[in-house]
Structures are given as C-alpha cells and as structure tokens.
C-alpha cells in the first residue's frame, strides 16, 4: 500500500509489530465493509431464489438452495393471471408523465431564478426549498377532499400533479448547482444576436443541461415508481392502480404461494434494478446532490 512507502512512520524496533497491526486493522475493515454489503444484498438474493421455486422447494429445501429447475413459469403466471401487466403499464406511463413534467417545470423555474433578473426570485426559491420540509401526510386529507370535489379521485391526473408538486423542490435543488456553474457568455452572445429568451432556453440552455437532466430524471423515476401513499389514497379502480398498490393487493390474495409472491415482487423492482445497473453513477450523484446542498 501507499502508506508503507512513506518514511513518515517511526520505524524503530516496533516497526514490524506496527505493520502487522496495521495489516490486521485493514483486514478487519474490509471484513466489516464486506459484511455490511452482504447484509444489504442477501435478502434480495433470497427473494430471487424463492421467486424461481415452487412451494415444495420453498418449504422443503434450505433457504439459499439454488433451484435446479428454475420455475420461470412463476413469472409467466403472475403476469398473465392477475392485473400485474396493467399495473406495470400504469406505473410506466404515470412515472414517465410526472417525470417529464417535473423536469421541464423545474428547468423553467431554475432558469428564471438563476439567469433572469426580477424581484422576489429569492423568495420564490425559498418557497420551493421550504417545501422540502413539509410532510406528505399533513397534506393528504385536504388533497383527498379537494381532488374529490374536482372529480379527480380515481383519476391518474391526481397522481401526476401530486408527484410533480412534491418532486419539484428536490429537482430544482439538483438543477441549481448545475445552472450556477453554467458560463454566461453563451447567453450574452445569443442575446446580442437577437435571440429571444424562449429560443435561447429551449435551444441552447436545455441541451447544455442534458447530463443533469438525466440525473434528475432517474431520481424522479425512482421516486415516482416507488410512490405508495398517494396511489393508495386517491386510486380505487384496478385499471388505474400502479405496481406498488397493485402488488400490495395482489400479495394479500396469494399469501401461501411463495413463488408467485416472489415473482410479483421481482417484477415490481426489476425496472429499478435495471436502472441501477445501467446508471448507478447518476443515481449516486442525484441522491447526494438532492439531499445535502441547500
């Protein structure tokens, strides 16, 4: 290791002892870190394994035994017999709509706040940032009764609007850092050439922010895909339910079929796992930027 090459340590007669101690310490640290990693992963490994078993194998064999004949039919069965397919498609399009709306609106706001001159812009930004602190549950009853009056209960629009409103603050927070760092010269030149603000924003700024848009997009995708309480409260028909609530109801009916439950849970988390495998750097970046800065 690098530290050993450095002459800074007082290497006297006890030098060898110190080195052994340091090596043991390093080994111990790796062990702890690995143990945490295993604990974080093991429940999911178990889930994957029992999603591919039938009840006989789940009940009769050790929990981490590899299914010799994986029951892929568990997946086929839950996809075709229940409404999981419907829930899945609802999750996809509701997540996508709310994501697109949030990222677009947040870009508009962030642009206006960071690049344009007007009174009250810091107050408006403050309103969005304080919005981060409001607990969702304190808004639930008024939202329910208001959506009811507007005939938006059991309507996906209530979800898209709620997701967008509650995700705007975090999204703006992540965008802010990026916008502050954008060079102003491009805009100045564009305005000199007679470019309008709208044109400049849509044609120049938005494309320049594509990487941070991807980051906020993936974070929004995860939030929207996993959202539970709004769907549970606002949506009652199966045709509009998303996967979280759908899975919850579905599993309630099949309490004894382990393979079916495992397959259902796997289907519900697969898009997120896939996103994680492909875009883990952006997820890490978005989560850390969206929670600490401010």
């Amino acid at each position, binding site marked *: 290791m690098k530290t050993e090459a450095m002459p*800074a340590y007082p290497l006297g007669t006890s030098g060898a002892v110190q080195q052994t101690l340091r090596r043991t*310490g390093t080994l111990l*640290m*790796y062990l*702890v*870190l690995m143990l*945490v*990693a295993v604990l*974080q*992963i093991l*429940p*999911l490994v*178990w*889930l994957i394994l029992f999603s591919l078993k039938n009840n006989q194998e*789940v*009940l009769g064999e*050790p*929990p981490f035994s590899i299914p010799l004949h994986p029951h892929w039919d568990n997946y086929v069965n839950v996809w075709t017999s229940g409404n999981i397919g419907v829930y899945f498609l609802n999750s996809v399009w509701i997540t996508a709509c709310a994501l697109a709306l949030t990222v677009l*609106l947040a870009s*508009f*706001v962030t642009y*206006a706040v960071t690049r*344009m*001159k*007007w009174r009250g812009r810091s107050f*408006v930004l403050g*309103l*969005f940032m304080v*919005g981060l602190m*409001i*607990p969702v*549950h*304190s*808004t639930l*009853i*008024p939202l329910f*009764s208001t959506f009811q009056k507007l005939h938006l209960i059991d309507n996906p629009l209530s979800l898209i*609007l709620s997701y967008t*409103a509650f995700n*705007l*603050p975090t999204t703006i927070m992540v965008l802010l850092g990026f916008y502050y760092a954008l060079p102003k010269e491009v805009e100045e030149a564009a*305005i*000199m050439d007679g470019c309008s*603000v709208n044109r400049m924003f849509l044609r120049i700024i938005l494309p320049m922010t594509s990487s941070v848009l991807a980051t906020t997009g993936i974070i929004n995708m995860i939030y929207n895909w996993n959202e*539970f*309480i709004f769907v549970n409260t606002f949506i009652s028909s199966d045709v509009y339910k998303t996967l*979280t609530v759908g899975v*919850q109801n579905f599993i309630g009916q099949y309490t004894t079929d*382990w393979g079916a*439950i495992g397959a259902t849970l796997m289907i*519900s*988390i697969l898009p*997120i796992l896939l996103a994680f495998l492909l875009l*883990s750097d952006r*997820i*890490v970046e978005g*989560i*850390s930027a969206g*929670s*600490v800065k401010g």
Partner: protein
Amino acid sequence: MDKVISNKRVIALYVVPSLLLLLGIVYIPIILTGYYGLNKWDGISPMIFIGLDNYQALIKDSAFWQSAYHSLLLAVFSGLSLIGYLGIALVLSGKIKAANLLRKIYLIPMLLSSVAIAQLWIKIYHPSNGVLNAFLSSLGVSDPPSWLADPKIVLFSLFVPIVWQYAGFYILIYYAGLKNIPESLMEAARIDGASSWQIATRIKLPLVTEIIKVTIVLSIVGSLKYFDLIYVMTDGGPNGASEVMASYMYHKAFRSFDFGYGSAIGFFLLLICLIATFLIRKATASKDTVQFH
C-alpha cells in the same frame, strides 16, 4: 441584455405554473389541514365548526401519545444509527479498494419501493418458512419469537428493515462529504505523525460537521413522519403496538372516517416536524464551524 432577461411575461410563464402547483398541492393543503382540524367532519356531510375540541381531545388521547412515543423511539434509534453509518463511511473513505462499488451496493435497498421491501421482510420474518428463523434454527434456537406478532418486540422488528433501507443513503452522503476533503490535508497530518484515528477524529469529522447536522435533521424528522414500511408490514398492530403518528392519522381519517380529527393529527405532525427541525438546527448551531470549500 437586461431588457431581455427581465422580461416579465417570460418570467411569469416560466415560474407561475410550478408555483401554482406548489401552492395548490403543498402549501394550501397544510393550511386547510389546520382548518379542517377545527371541525367535526366525516369527509362527506357538511363540516361543523367545533373550535379547538379536536386538538383538546388529541392532547388527552392516550392512543395518540403511544403512537407519538413509538415515532420518538424510531427517531432516537435512527439518530443513534447515524454513528454506525459515519463509522462505515470513515472506513470506506480511507484507502479502500472497491469503495465506489461498495457504496453503490449499500444503496440498493433504498432504491426499492417500500411495499416491495415490506413484503420481502414479512417473508423474512415468516414464522415457519422465513429465512431468519431458518438461520436461527440452524444455530440451535428452537423457539424464536414471533417477530411481527409479539407486541413487545414488533417495534424493533420493524426498525431493522427501516435501518436496512436507509443505511446506504446516509453512508453515501457521509462518504461524499469525506471524499471532498483534500488529500493534502491528510498527507500533511501523516507527515506530522498523526495516527489514522487522530486523522479521523481531528481532521475528517470536524470538516463534515455541516453534513452531520443535515443528516441529523433528515433522520429525526424523517422518523417522526415515518409511515411506509410500518403501514404495510403490521398496519400499526398488533393492537396498536407499532402504531406511529402518521399511521394513526391515516387510520383515523381513512378507516374511521374522522377527517376532522385526522386533520388535527396531520397538523400536529407538521408542527412537530417543523419544531424538531428548528430545535435540532438550534442545538447544533455553532459560531465557529470549520468548513472547507
């Protein structure tokens, strides 16, 4: 230039839609919650104004205070677990190979939906086929407790998956902060003969104080309003033994259809979260914070 970038119509076009959404869906509802709390209301028939009756009843409601106590326990538990996360992040930010991969692995549970996690942990805790009891019986434990059905331990059985869910998030935040500290500072300390322990406690920790404060607020306020896993795994049961403030509110409003009382709880929850944020900020505020940019 100024004329173009202070164009009022463009600004309004860019800001007003989002602002309306924020006001309509976040701010106006919290005012309404406070107002609904002053009424007797089942959500359908007309409201009857009853003043502070709901709030007075709430103060005397032992079931509510029990749920508040459970939320507080979770807050204390989550707050204390931050120490562990900080320790792991400190180790991880040293010269550890694969640190980047490890922090990503830690994060996976946080990316999954609470419903999926809750259902998975119900299975883990399953009395006869759960992996936990299978593991315990292989160690020779013959009568493991009923994790989710025993009112004495149910709360702690729920805390475990909550910690499992959020550990990676806090480790990630701490790790990012620790990695921001310039390597030259640590090199200098090493040349002066500082041990790893001294570097960690005298250099690294003071430089992430701001981040630690933020995470204390996040974890405590997040715990006070916590709902998801508990609602799915035990629904506050058995017999209220795992009820927390948010689930109590939900049950009062959407099970007992007491929207007025539910709103009073919702408003109280909001106040508690805001006061907690304020108090923690105040308690951790110091004039001579070391900060590195």
